[in-house]
């Protein structure tokens, strides 16, 4: 990587498991390096330029599909009271086991705050035996999850716009250098029997602009013209991404819950 925003936050390719769920980006770590258009590593002049440029970096989040769909569920309300929810965050692709675990913990807190009884795990298969759902009858086997949400994350595109770095250096960083990463979260919700209730793909991207021109311009706009919701500098990208991501998860689980409710009653009520 030739440059990173020094915002105190993780880039989409890095872990952010220590940040609170309400203000962090979604933890994804960078996959092994792939062949680029041409290699930028090892170029001393570019390193020097990156060093200059990272002093002024603006990291912007753009929802692409699914992440900015309308949401009705209010996560402050007990939408899932008493519901046993399993959250499985599968490592692999762009998520390390630690990052998958951190993400699962945040999602677990999100659903617990809405009244659900949550178990999280990062391995394929059902709820691990060491942390089953509570049962009223101590002699009975532990009950299965009413709903299980499974998440996979992957990076689907990465571009460093090499020419933008050249132009940025030539222009003394008035023109920004750019790094762009597009990511996807694949979400499945199944009922207790494993029946697939819903499947969604949330796609978004993080664009990092490096350079004095873009940093000064955006900072001035944030300080003067932009409303709080429109601000772009600092940790805003993480806040915006988290707000969209966790809202979509709550809505996806609620919609699946409604579907499971009627389909589960199918056998009992059909004459």
């Amino acid at each position, binding site marked *: 990587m030739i440059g990173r925003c020094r915002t105190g936050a993780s880039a989409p390719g890095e872990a952010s498991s220590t940040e609170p769920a309400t203000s962090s980006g979604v933890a994804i770590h960078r996959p092994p390096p792939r062949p680029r*258009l041409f290699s930028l590593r090892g170029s001393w002049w570019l390193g020097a330029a990156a060093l200059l440029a990272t002093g002024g970096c*603006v990291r*912007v*989040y*753009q*929802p*692409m*599909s699914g992440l*900015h*769909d*309308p*949401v*009705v*569920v*209010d996560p402050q309300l007990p*939408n899932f009271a008493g519901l046993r929810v399993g959250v499985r965050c599968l490592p692999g692709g762009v998520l390390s086991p630690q990052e998958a675990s951190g993400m699962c913990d945040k999602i677990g807190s999100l659903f617990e705050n809405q009244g659900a009884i949550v178990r999280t795990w990062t391995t394929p298969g059902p709820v691990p035996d060491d942390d089953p759902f509570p049962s009223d009858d101590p002699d009975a086997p532990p009950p299965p999850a009413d709903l299980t949400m499974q998440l996979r994350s992957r990076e*689907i*595109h990465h*571009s460093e*716009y090499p*020419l*933008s770095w050249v*132009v940025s250096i030539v222009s003394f960083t008035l*023109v920004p250098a*750019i790094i*762009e990463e*597009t990511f996807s979260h694949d979400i499945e919700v199944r009922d207790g029997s494993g029946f697939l209730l*819903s499947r969604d793909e949330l*796609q978004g*991207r993080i*664009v990092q*602009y490096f350079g004095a021109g*873009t940093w000064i*311009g*955006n900072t001035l*706009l944030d300080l003067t013209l*932009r409303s709080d*919701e*429109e601000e*772009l500098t600092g940790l805003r990208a993480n806040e*915006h991404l988290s707000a969209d991501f966790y809202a979509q998860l709550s*809505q996806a689980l*609620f*919609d699946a819950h*409604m*579907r499971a*409710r*009627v*389909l589960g*009653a*199918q056998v009992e*009520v*059909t*004459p």
Partner: protein
Amino acid sequence: MISVAFLPLLFPAAPAPGLARSRAWARQYDCERISDEVALQRYPGRVRPSSPEEDPDRTVVICHQRLLSEGLREPRDEAVLRDLRDTADAIAVATEGLRPGLGEVTWLVDVHYPDGEVADKIGFATKNALMKRSLSVSDRVPLLTASDLGVLTRMPPEQAYPKACRRYHDTGSLGDDEVLVAVVQLDVRQTTLLAGICHQGRWGWLP
């Protein structure tokens, strides 16, 4: 002209917020990054094929501007109406497995949704999807008495819909050669629709 030609190499292709673009403006677009191959299939003539010199793993960003800006419609209505064509098609497809056992029947559509105008649109789209499959569709809607409705509305929906179906049959409101497709939003917090069918007093939710 030369500088314009370099712009795609300098800046991300899709609308990302920045100096010249606000967050609200960027959120008006639904975008997806898809492979070159998929893009050429879905948008023939509108995506430039990659040349042999270009990256064989090239991807393309496709963006569509939303018809209405955020906030102009209720989020619930916006979510339902945005996916309405797909939802209606999915309902029609789900009925396909049931048709061989039903014989020659007429299909009726009833929509239970909090907003009347949106309910009309849902009904229209569902009937269209059924008619596209060459089914006989009627505009008639079966009715229940006020006392029936008084009882049913106090029951949870899992029980109310099967009971209503039985009453449609028992009262003759729904004939033996008619099938009712009910498109339902069970809870105002839902952004999806559920559907069930009623035939000869038997009710089933569509998967």
